[in-house]
């Protein structure tokens, strides 16, 4: 107990990444929280409609999406660890792996979107699908931004721009990516599973 308290109080303990990124994440989470709340309230008001509409989604696709994002998050975290140990080129490869894993998510999601659109289950179909498209679409845009960030970080790592004493930007980027992960972990059960 005392050691953990000491660790907490030690001057070496600092906030990873830029404070502004934390503020940004807080703001983003607020928006997602309101979206999730809206979904939950709408489901409580129309339980049958939500139950029936959810059957039209493939939950195994949802699971695959979740796994690809989580794997990508793991690679990003490992990359940061490598940067902290001054092994930037290894970090660049790990970031590339994160990028590939996230691309699997993008491809699967695009496949799902085109399948739903083809089946006439567009954003105007019913309340469930309006909210499905809004929530996952808003998240999808964040994933696309994340791809850009991961690619940019990989390039910077390849050029050895970051090191153990200079990794705040890298931390901020990875923090953003974990936020995108975290939100999806909440969205997956909410949209695909919970009845």
């Amino acid at each position, binding site marked *: 107990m005392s050691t953990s308290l000491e660790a907490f109080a030690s001057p070496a303990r600092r906030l990873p990444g830029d*404070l*502004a990124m934390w*503020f*940004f994440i*807080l*703001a*983003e989470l*607020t*928006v997602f929280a*309101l*979206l999730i709340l*809206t979904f939950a309230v709408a489901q409580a008001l129309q339980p049958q409609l939500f139950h029936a509409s959810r059957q039209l989604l493939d939950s195994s696709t949802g699971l695959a999406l979740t796994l690809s994002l989580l794997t990508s998050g793991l690679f990003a975290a490992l990359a940061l660890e490598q940067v902290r140990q001054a092994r930037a080129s290894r970090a660049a490869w790990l970031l590339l792996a994160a990028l590939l894993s996230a691309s699997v998510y993008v491809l699967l999601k695009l496949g799902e979107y085109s399948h739903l659109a083809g089946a006439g289950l567009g*954003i*105007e179909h019913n309340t469930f699908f*309006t*909210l499905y*498209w*809004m929530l996952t679409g808003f998240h999808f845009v964040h994933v696309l931004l994340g791809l850009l960030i991961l690619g940019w970080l990989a390039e910077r790592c390849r050029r050895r721009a970051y090191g153990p004493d200079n990794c705040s930007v890298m931390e901020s980027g990875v923090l953003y990516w974990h936020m995108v992960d975290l939100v999806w972990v909440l969205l997956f059960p909410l949209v695909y599973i919970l009845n």
Partner: protein
Amino acid sequence: MTIMNPHLKFQSQAVAKPYFVFALMLFLGQILFGLIMGLQYVVGDFLFPLIPFNVARMVHTNLLIVWLLFGFMGAAYYLIPEEADRELHSPKLAIILFWVFAAAGVLTILGYLFVPYAGLAKMTGNELLPTMGREFLEQPTITKMGIVVVALGFLYNIGMTLLKGRKTTISMVMMTGLIGLAVFFLFSFYNPENLARDKYYWWFVVHLWVEGVWELIMGAMLAFVLIKVTGVDREVVEKWLYVIIAMALITGILGTGHHFFWIGAPAVWLWVGSIFSAMEPIPFFAMVLFAFTMVGKRRRQHPNRAATLWAKGTTVTAFFGAGVWGFLHTLAPVNFYTHGSQLTAAHGHLAFYGAYAMIVMTLISYAMPRLRGLGEAPDERSQTIEIWGFWLMTLSMVAITLCLTAAGVVQVMLQRWPTDGTALSFMSTVDQLAVFFWLRLVAGLFFLVGLLCYLYSFKQRGRATARDEAALAVSA
């Protein structure tokens, strides 16, 4: 500009002065036309056919936009050199553009007043590229093109200053806001035949200005003045600015959806608009916290009390006007009844005054004493008169807002709510609201008194305050 002004860090900042002076002249014009309209609400044929209601309204709203643009430009010319730590790229260009913009503005307003609108459209060749006839964007196409030219020259001027100089968060945010202002104005040139589609693009100008990029401009101006009057570290101020900007953009851009209710747009906008705009008060609340925290942490007692009061006042009034009064009718189920009612007018008045009129006056209050060579602050007497102006205008605007809110509630009850066939027609409803409109007119007169008070506060002769002479002696 031949005489050195010791109170300016860079002499080229002086070009801001004509912009501020002209902005305040137009502001006075806006208020006079507001009073004419206020009376026309209850005495319908007042000044008819000399100045019909639609013309008075057009002049009132267009003067508002133009004086705020003059204010923003003046603010940029004042703060960009100081932030970039170098002289303005071309003071001469700034002065030329001032005269071009002022002449175009005056000619356009005279056109509104002395030529029937359809005649003005014909005279200016509107049929070649029809852009006229939409609220706030009534300017003849040729004036719109002039605005684009002035904006390009202006952006070039401050952009070059910034590129060659120091880049700070404040100047980058200001620049982003001003570029956004120019870019979104371009949608005013697209005017589809289909009215529902036209509304999309129209709101891309109007909404993405006031609930998007203008918030960046406001944030940057506020941060600049707060650094100056409190002496708080730039780093602290910049963190706040990041949060405000992020929240403004996340909520504001998709919040555009709240204008697409019941106009023939897809129903998904009911959800998008309600959810995202419900969070639009957050950046305004962050600005309130920002201003009061910074003033609380201040490292010095700035002699310009009035500027500090404006800085705090603009955040609070903007939070109520834009944030709270916006939220009142932004949720789709509520807006179903309140869409385009007097509640919208109540929100519009307090939001424009609180967020944008007041932030421009905040910067004028801070910069004008220096631009006039008076020092850091005008003398005590002038400041007291200015503070009277602040309270008279602000409280009158609150009174106007409350009158219009009451009128809006009664309007909804009489005209929108009843489903059993007892709902009144629009004109019968307006007759019932006369008492609120009379009260609003009285509040408007008090606003004019406040504005005159404020303008009178500039009367001080050009002589530095004792405190400032001492400061100058020390620095010398």
